């Protein structure tokens, strides 16, 4: 009897010894607190990515494991978590959602000389100037404005020059919204548009009608809005109430690209152009399938943040399986040499351009809300679906 148990134990232990030690990837994100909405999306993306990479044999045969660190939407907790991950010798850490958290994290990893993969935070300053240790696969905030200006240029080409000339901007006063609004100013000057007025607002839950009334007097061609989810719906509804007409309503990402923007705004959301970073209609392999799986895990339509988390994990796994060792310098070298042409998030490779350093150069996507649905209209410099003219409120 005793010998049987002993034999069993022996088999078990040798079996365990044969299975390789798992390779760990650190993920710092906001699972609780005010950014938890995005943490949920990240968890779904990471979960599916882990299923995929482990089914495909992990990292050179070793299973992949994620070490979650909840930053509770606060920078102090994020920095404490980063220190722990670094001291535990986790070879590659990814994070975090808000730029108020990611910026200090990037400073920390740079000083520790450890590689840090940013997969969802879009503040330009993270990779511009950036550092040799900071890599970002998602599009910087400039891209949100840029793709919409491409749409404006396209509309001008279709309707004849002078169709769109004037812009008004309304944005929240957070770092991201301000950065996109700055990009609007810059791009307008570069491409010959006039910004008539630019207004920001403080907390969410604000009443936008006074600002919209003010815009109404200016009769702009384009109303450019940058705000988070709660405010995007209020904006759309109040634009209808106030009766502010324009040829183009453009939402610079964040709130406008989420499914509940349409749910909450109803018909007021129609014809609004939004910039987004990823949709199931992007021309990359497996996009539709990933979208379906994310929908199943989340129980609702995913936002692009989930796809970014998915892309982050598969990039990290690709990097770690190519790295000569799990030492920081080798992981960094492998990150630099990344070249993944056919991922579901597009061609991931880190380059230096326009003052950015180690920044993946991916285009954003423009959608238009048509008949209560997001329709992808502009990807990679091409119109993929017709863009509809915005009728005046009286004619809807």
């Amino acid at each position, binding site marked *: 009897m005793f010998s049987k148990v002993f034999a069993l134990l022996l088999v078990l232990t040798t079996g365990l010894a044969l299975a390789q030690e798992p390779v760990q990837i650190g993920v710092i994100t906001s699972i609780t607190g005010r950014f938890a909405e995005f943490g949920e999306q990240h968890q779904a993306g990471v979960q599916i990515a882990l299923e995929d990479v482990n089914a495909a044999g992990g990292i050179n045969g070793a299973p992949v494991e994620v070490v979650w660190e909840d930053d509770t939407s606060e920078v102090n907790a994020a920095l*404490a978590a980063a220190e722990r991950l670094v001291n535990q010798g986790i070879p590659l850490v990814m994070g975090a959602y808000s730029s108020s958290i990611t910026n200090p994290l990037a400073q920390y990893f740079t000083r520790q000389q450890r590689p840090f993969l940013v997969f969802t935070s879009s503040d330009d300053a993270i990779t511009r100037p950036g550092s040799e240790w900071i890599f970002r696969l998602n599009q910087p905030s400039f891209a949100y404005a840029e793709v919409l200006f491409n749409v404006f240029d396209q509309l001008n080409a279709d309707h004849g020059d002078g169709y769109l000339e004037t812009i008004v901007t309304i944005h929240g006063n957070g770092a991201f919204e301000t950065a996109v609004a700055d990009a609007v100013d810059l791009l307008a000057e570069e491409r010959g548009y006039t910004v008539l007025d630019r207004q920001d607002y403080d907390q969410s839950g604000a009443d936008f009608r006074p600002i919209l009334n003010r815009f109404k007097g200016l009769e702009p061609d384009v109303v450019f809005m940058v705000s988070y989810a709660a405010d995007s719906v209020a904006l759309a509804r109040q634009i209808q109430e106030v009766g502010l007409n324009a040829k183009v309503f453009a939402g610079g990402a964040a709130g406008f690209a989420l499914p509940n923007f349409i749910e909450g705004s109803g018909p007021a959301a129609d014809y609004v152009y939004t910039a987004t970073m990823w949709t199931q209609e992007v021309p990359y392999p497996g996009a539709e399938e990933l979208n379906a799986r994310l929908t199943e895990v989340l129980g609702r339509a995913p936002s692009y943040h989930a796809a970014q988390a998915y892309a982050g994990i598969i990039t990290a796994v690709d990097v770690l399986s190519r790295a000569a060792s799990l030492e920081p310098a080798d992981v960094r070298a492998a990150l630099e040499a990344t070249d993944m042409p056919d991922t579901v998030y597009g061609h991931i490779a880190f380059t230096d351009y326009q003052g950015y350093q180690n920044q993946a150069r991916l285009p954003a996507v423009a959608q238009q809300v048509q008949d209560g649905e997001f329709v992808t209209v502009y990807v990679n410099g091409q119109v993929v679906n017709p863009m509809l003219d915005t009728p005046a409120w009286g004619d809807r």
Partner: protein
Amino acid sequence: MSYLRLGLVALAGLAWFLLLPDYRTLGINLLLLAGWATAWDLLGGWSGQTSLGHAAFVGLGAYTVAVTGTSWDLAPWWGALLAMALAALLALLWGKLTFRLRGSYFVLASIAVAEILRLVAINERELTGGAIGLFIFDLKEPFGLDLFDRGVEFWLALGYLILVLAIAAFVTRGRLGYQMRAVREDEPSAEAAGINPEAVKLWAFAISGGLTALGGCLYGIVLSALQPQPLFEIHLSVRIALVAIIGGRGTLFGPLIGAALITVAAELFRNVFAEANLLIYGALIVIVVLFAPSGLLGEVHRWTVRRRYARGARG
């Protein structure tokens, strides 16, 4: 006696440094929060003026070091001195305006002033970098110390806390301390006894603000990327005040105990209870307020005093 306890605090800091090398950032957070809460207590506990606006001083300190260090190329210790002077000045102005208000009115005014300062930090982009903020990439190194090393920062934070505790001990033991308590207990009687309540409160506020800003300087260096949103927010003001009150206002070591308890508990809850951590944190505050209304250390004091009296009565 309390200087002996200061030595114990230093020893505990040393032990933390040696035994918990993975938790230095957490330690820095704890020490800074304890320092701020102790500084807050000079005004909020000893002088009885509850402020929910002390984040303004933290933000002022952090931004002063960042602006002077990057735009003016000034060494951080000069930046810190300037920050303390500015904070004391701000406190004098702020106090001069609002000390005529009592109780709840003063609390509300402190929130309003801090909120206005937050809006200034967001809107005055030339100076503060606006919403996008400021970055500290490089600083002059005092005595060859790398200020961005977590170990160095830990020692600086420990030094900061001990400095604040020593100043608080010195102030509260001295003449000013008695005057502060007299004003807190009964302002008209204090005035009748020849104390100028406004002057006493202004002194307390200026010292409190200056010391808070000094910790803010160090916090700015730890973050190295400053944005108005987390620095000037009311949440930080609230946390500073709560920590002091939970630990025991008007006691020298209460704020430190409160900070240690809250920081460690938040970290434990974060890992153990995951999604419910803030909920438990809130419930904890309610429980402490209900069952230990003078703060943890305050309750201990009350209990020992009562026992001493009981023993005296029996003997």
